[in-house]
């Protein structure tokens, strides 16, 4: 059995009769960046809250560091850095004062931790500016600074680039990458910004309407599902039947415009063309294509895009 840093089994959350998270099994390995991808309201934040004990679990279990979360909550939380939803801080205090309160509550962090964490996210130490005067991007940064102040092994970040300007997005992305690659931190993040996920995630979990539709390594996912052959030939039904017979194609989709997407990319396109030509079926177009993550997301969730 593999050792996962975070593992959930059948995680379910119900509000009354409505289930907002349904039987989610998440597996986060040490040192990897795991991204939960889903639309707003898909259940990402609720899952994170349940992982941290902020929301009661209706059904299912959470294991962290190989042990059950229940009963070891305090010990685990000391090893985790968290930023959930919009970062909340006291508006009448400065960034340093806000972090001092959190550092004081943690009680065991090193001397320069506040200074270092603020510098890491590009905020000045002992600045006189109050939190209420911060821009959304700066608020997001202080949220990340609060999450890393105690040098945690695991980071749980909910929408970490939300509200950041393009430079801020890039810096945060690099920073998360650095934490994972150089310091071996395990990072679980959620986002609905596909371009960020594509650039950051090692492993991806696609969630829609509270159900985890897919969980796999991003590279595997790309290889397996995001590449396909796009074939345009008439009559479609006959072509499909012939390809099933000859090439044993099972994973395909007929698009609205009559084109066929074949996800078994091992087959050579020239073989398909030759095979169909020999049977007097002329191919209008055939291409090897790559889906973007957004296309894949649309396909797997069976509907609209993520935004």
């Amino acid at each position, binding site marked *: 059995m593999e050792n996962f840093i975070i593992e959930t089994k059948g995680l379910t959350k119900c509000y009354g009769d409505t289930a907002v998270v349904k039987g989610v099994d998440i597996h986060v390995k040490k040192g990897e960046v795991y991204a939960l991808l889903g639309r707003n309201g898909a259940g990402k934040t609720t899952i994170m809250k349940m992982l941290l004990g902020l*929301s009661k679990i209706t059904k299912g279990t959470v294991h962290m560091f190989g042990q059950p979360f229940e009963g070891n909550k305090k010990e685990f939380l000391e090893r*985790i850095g*968290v930023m959930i939803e919009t970062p*909340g801080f*006291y508006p*009448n*205090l400065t960034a340093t004062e806000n972090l001092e*309160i959190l550092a004081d509550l*943690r009680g065991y962090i090193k001397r320069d931790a506040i200074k270092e964490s603020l510098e890491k996210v590009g905020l000045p130490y002992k600045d006189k500016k109050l939190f209420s005067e911060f821009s959304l991007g700066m608020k997001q940064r202080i949220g990340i600074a609060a999450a890393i102040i105690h040098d945690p092994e695991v980071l749980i970040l909910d929408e970490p680039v939300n509200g950041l300007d393009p430079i801020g997005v890039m810096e945060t992305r690099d920073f998360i990458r650095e934490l994972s690659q150089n310091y071996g931190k395990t990072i679980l993040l959620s986002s609905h910004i596909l371009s960020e996920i594509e650039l950051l995630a090692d492993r991806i979990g696609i969630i829609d309407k509270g159900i985890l539709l897919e969980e796999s390594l991003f590279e595997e996912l790309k290889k397996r599902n995001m590449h396909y052959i796009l074939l345009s030939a008439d009559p479609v039904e006959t072509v499909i039947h012939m390809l099933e017979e000859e090439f044993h194609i099972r994973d395909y989709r007929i698009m609205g415009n009559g084109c066929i997407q074949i996800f078994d990319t091992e087959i050579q396109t020239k073989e398909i063309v030759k095979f169909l030509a020999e049977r007097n079926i002329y191919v209008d177009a055939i291409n090897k294509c790559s889906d973007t993550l957004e296309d894949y997301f649309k396909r797997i969730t069976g509907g609209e895009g993520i935004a």
Partner: protein
Amino acid sequence: MLSICRNELKKLKRQKMARMLWAVGILIPTFGTLLCIKNHYPFRNLVGTNVLFGSFLVIPFVFSAMLLNLFELEERNHTLKNILVIGVPEWKIFLSKLAAALVIVVVFTGIITAYTVAGGIFLRNYIPDVFHIFGIFLIISLCSICATMPVVLLIIMLRKRNLIAMIAINCFILIDFLFVWQLTMFHCLEMHLPVLVAFRITYPFGIIEYTDNLKLGLDTLYYPMDKGIFLLGATTAVSLVISLWLYKRQEADV
């Protein structure tokens, strides 16, 4: 626990609401003190006035409003989750806020003492025992706070609706104060309201100088000390246990 309590006080730094409460708390005892100075009342009357307006009006008001402010600021700023993900349990958060509000009570007791002593100096009939005066105010204020503890339940229930909560706690404090102020007029001597019990058992402490005409007051207001302490203790314990239970229940899903 101490550091959590200290942090609670830090949160009030530069806060408008806290500044307003400080101003109200500092200003109200001024009127009673000035009134006594203007009319050249004896020092014992000044103490009596400040016990009534200070310990039974200002202190419960400041305690309740500051406590509401401390609970409400976590709701308003979405900061409670930051504390909970550190692993600080709800009961510690609850008690630290209560402790911070009690620290503020002690500070205001000091302020009322300062007013009383300053008033005494102006009246020129002051018995110079600051610690004795402070002790009197502290005991009476703490008993008054114990009697006011049901307000914590109101705060916990209504803290997510700040305006309603503020109106409710002010009504509670004012009604309590009216009972104490017009104790005989409202025929309250047969009642066992915590605030009346607190007033009656602490009444003898506030007497700086015994005079013959106080005999009637002492006899009329007499309330058995042990029964009074039990009633105040029970009020405090029941209010806090129910409030804490409710708070934990509410915060189970942040």
